[in-house]
């Protein structure tokens, strides 16, 4: 892969190993839940992908967008980081919705319900798909970047809505197991499950980093291709003008 380096190969190896260990722990080692039985094993995918999408991916997109909009730090680099992170985030939030739907089928008996948490998460997915579509609308690079940055800031407003949906409204989706402030010192989760959940979060965080690096480098290469196309077109035009 042309965007690979020694560093990304090492990171990729560690990521793959930690993901495999998470799957092993989640499917085999950790116990079934007292109430949800084996369905709880989906927590080791659902929670990490949600974390990576909402707080990491879309958080980075928002921060990079702010840095682009701020005149002192404005650089094409931040726009490309924002776009790359958003794309990875869309993949993760899509997985959160799919795995969550499967989990809902086993625990609630339905694939989908218009619960506040689920609805706001689906909205989040649509908002960032819209953001990615906006980035593809033809325009001057600076205009496109500024427009996208503003869209990213607007889309991020839904993230706290998703986070607090389970406390603001009466929802089918459960409240936080570990992050609930009322139960910080006494989370209702078995030790090995908590450690496996933490491992899953670490594994998916490493995966996010690996995907972000590669996606950013691809965007950088594609931008060079676009600039090169422009240079060739200008050179041809100058040659035509010289012949006239």
């Amino acid at each position, binding site marked *: 892969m042309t965007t690979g380096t020694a560093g990304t190969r090492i990171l990729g190896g560690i990521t793959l190993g930690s993901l495999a260990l998470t799957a092993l722990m989640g499917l085999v080692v950790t116990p079934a839940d007292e109430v949800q039985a084996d369905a709880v094993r989906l927590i080791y995918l659902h929670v990490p992908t949600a974390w990576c999408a909402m707080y990491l991916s879309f958080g980075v997109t928002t921060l990079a967008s702010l840095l682009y909009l701020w005149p002192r730090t404005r650089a094409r680099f931040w726009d490309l980081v924002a776009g790359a992170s958003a794309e990875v985030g869309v993949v993760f939030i899509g997985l959160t919705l799919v795995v969550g739907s499967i989990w809902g089928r086993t625990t609630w008996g339905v694939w989908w319900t218009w619960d506040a948490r689920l609805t706001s998460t689906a909205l989040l997915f649509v908002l960032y798909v819209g953001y990615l579509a906006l980035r593809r609308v033809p325009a001057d690079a600076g205009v496109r970047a500024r427009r996208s940055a503003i869209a990213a800031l607007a889309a991020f407003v839904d993230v706290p809505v998703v986070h607090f949906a389970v406390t603001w409204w009466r929802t089918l989706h459960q409240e936080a197991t570990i992050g609930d402030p009322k139960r910080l010192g006494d989370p209702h989760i078995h030790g090995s499950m908590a450690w496996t959940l933490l491992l899953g979060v670490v594994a998916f965080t490493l995966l996010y980093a690996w995907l972000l690096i590669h996606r950013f480098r691809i965007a950088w290469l594609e931008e*060079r291709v676009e600039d090169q196309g422009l240079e060739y077109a200008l050179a041809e035009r100058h040659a035509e003008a010289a012949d006239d």
Partner: protein
Amino acid sequence: MTDAPYVYAGYAVTAFALAGYVGVLVRRARAAARALPPEERRWNR
């Protein structure tokens, strides 16, 4: 019916989706590299 098929389906969907996305990235990277002169094709040049 136990929940095992649903659990395995969740892990399988996750694995295939991520593998598919990595495949898309590989294809895009190679396409971009093909469009660039040889001296600019690698990231770590």
